[in-house]
């Protein structure tokens, strides 16, 4: 940043205003106010920067260092092992399987959730009575804390006392042991899609930003509702959808909830997870807790981090041209709803 840019729209005129109002006897130089504002900026943003360095950058670096060692948390003499851990990541079938499973789950749930959220958003954007009530109630499942949601689905899909098998029984179909392979994956997909309200609200906000005149003009020109939706609404909504794709993928690759749908959700019980829900993050925690392999778990985390960076980058590149920014000049940004919360 050059010095010329420092005199910006906010600091510049204000400095002029206050020096103009200052009594003639006061000899303060005009730069002093700017310097003080700069100092204030560092005072105000410093705590976050410090927190970011200590609580994010340092742990990332720490994990990177650990990933080149055979640290196990027991003995202090962790030995440098070079790329051994990374070599193992590429050759460990459990790692590759869990990564593949996580990827497939992401490829299914992210588009499904976005499409369902968009459909609901279009519906609750119609001029119908009580649409505020519909919006609120459809959003409600997204408010349920993850553990509460997981336990609820565990009850619904319980083999003996669950509503799912009760309904099958009433229809004359034999009950299914849902929480084991291969059905556990469907329970997890249902649980994930249940929180569709988040996507609905974001898409709804996007829909409401689209000027009504556009679709009205299209109708006058003889466009069908479907044409108007695909040619006008969808392109204008593309930044909102793009945002959901990015945050959805990042969140989905970190999925951890299957642990709670498994039978023994204690760290020691991670291996009791049904195989179809044995996800990458579960593999990380299994290596970490059950096997005490801090070094290998750290390598796994760094690989996931790298994958997320690459995927995000590729989507950014691919979406150029497909994402259409007309109203807003920059992509919309919002915190993903991740398990880790707002850190």
């Amino acid at each position, binding site marked *: 940043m050059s010095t010329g840019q420092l005199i910006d729209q*906010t600091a510049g005129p204000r400095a002029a205003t206050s020096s103009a109002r200052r009594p003639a006897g006061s000899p303060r130089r005009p730069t002093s106010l700017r310097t003080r504002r700069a100092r204030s900026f560092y005072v105000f943003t410093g705590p976050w920067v410090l927190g*970011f360095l200590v609580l994010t950058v340092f742990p990332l670096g720490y994990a990177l260092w650990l990933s080149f060692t055979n640290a196990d948390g027991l003995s202090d003499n962790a030995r440098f092992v070079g790329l051994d851990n990374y070599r193992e990541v590429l050759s460990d079938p459990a790692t590759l399987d869990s990564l593949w499973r996580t990827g497939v789950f992401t490829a299914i749930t992210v588009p499904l959730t976005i499409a369902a959220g968009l459909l609901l958003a279009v519906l609750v954007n119609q001029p119908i009575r009580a649409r505020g009530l519909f919006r609120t109630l*459809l959003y409600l499942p997204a408010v349920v804390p993850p*553990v509460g949601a997981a336990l*609820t689905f565990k009850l619904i899909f319980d083999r003996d006392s669950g509503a799912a098998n009760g309904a099958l029984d009433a229809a004359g179909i034999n009950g299914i042991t849902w929480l084991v392979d291969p059905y556990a994956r469907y329970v997890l997909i249902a649980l994930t899609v249940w929180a569709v309200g988040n996507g609905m609200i974001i898409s709804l906000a996007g829909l409401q930003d689209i000027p009504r005149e556009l679709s009205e003009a299209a109708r006058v020109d003889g466009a069908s509702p479907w044409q108007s939706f695909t040619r006008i609404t969808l392109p204008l909504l593309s930044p909102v959808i793009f945002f959901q794709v990015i945050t959805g993928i990042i969140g989905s690759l*970190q999925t951890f909830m299957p642990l709670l749908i498994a039978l023994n959700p204690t760290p020691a019980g991670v291996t009791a997870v049904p195989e179809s829900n044995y996800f990458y993050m579960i593999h990380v925690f299994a290596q970490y807790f059950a096997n005490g392999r801090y070094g290998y778990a750290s390598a796994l985390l760094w690989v996931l981090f790298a994958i997320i960076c690459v995927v995000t980058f590729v989507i950014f590149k691919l979406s150029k041209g497909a994402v259409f920014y007309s109203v807003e000049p920059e992509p919309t940004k919002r915190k993903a709803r*991740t398990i880790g919360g707002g850190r």
Partner: protein
Amino acid sequence: MSVFSRRTVVYMILTAVLVLMLSPFGWLVITALKDASELRALPIHWWPHEPTLGNFDQALTLFDYLGYARNSLTISTLYAVLVTLASAWAGYGFARLEAPGKKAVFGVLLSTMMLPGVITLIPTYLMFAKLHLVNTYMPWVLWGLSGAPYLIFLFRQFFTNMPKELEEAAIVDGCGQVRIFWRIFLPQSWPVMATSFILSFSWTWGDYIAPALLLDDARTTLAVKLATGYTNEHGAQLSNLVAAGAVMYVVPVLALFLIMQRGFISGISTSGLK
């Protein structure tokens, strides 16, 4: 479209989806009202023949439910208060002050919103263990004090839109930036503070991994205990107690949301996107 009007079709779809979406809540409550023997009834009882509130008593006493609820409340309140104030503090800096490097720092802030939270969890645990902060609430204090990028962004958006005159008048009166923030800007931002408090409170109330990693059995939160606490001596899950415990865990959050929903939904849908 010939038999039904378009509006009727919309109502029918929405009602069907709504019934499907809300039915898990119904099943949770029904399960919570069933006696242990009725839970095993075949064919299944869609409505408990002898509804009982005894599960709630047992759910409260099988382990120290209220004690764990207090842990959750303490951590969530501590984090929510600190992170709201810290985020307002940083948001003010990004909105109203200028300095070399501001653009770069703000860029980093925005990109950390994309940073996957789970990645740093294990090294963070090891770091806190070395500092002897495991099994204390200090990690939440530290996380709170540094603010959360998303909330900083919310406050920044709000403060950016406030009139310049407010600040100018205060500067003429000799106020420093800290006092301008504390006396003028912060009190004006109560809608954002409320949104920030509720969001951060529910993040922590709902968080499972961090307390499971950082706190021992006595100090952990309700979320963790709820997932593991209701088993009999053979390790089998006591479903009716799980349901009762989950109802008491989820209902306060839902109630808070329903009370605040008007501001909350508009806050979520608009402020983060504009």
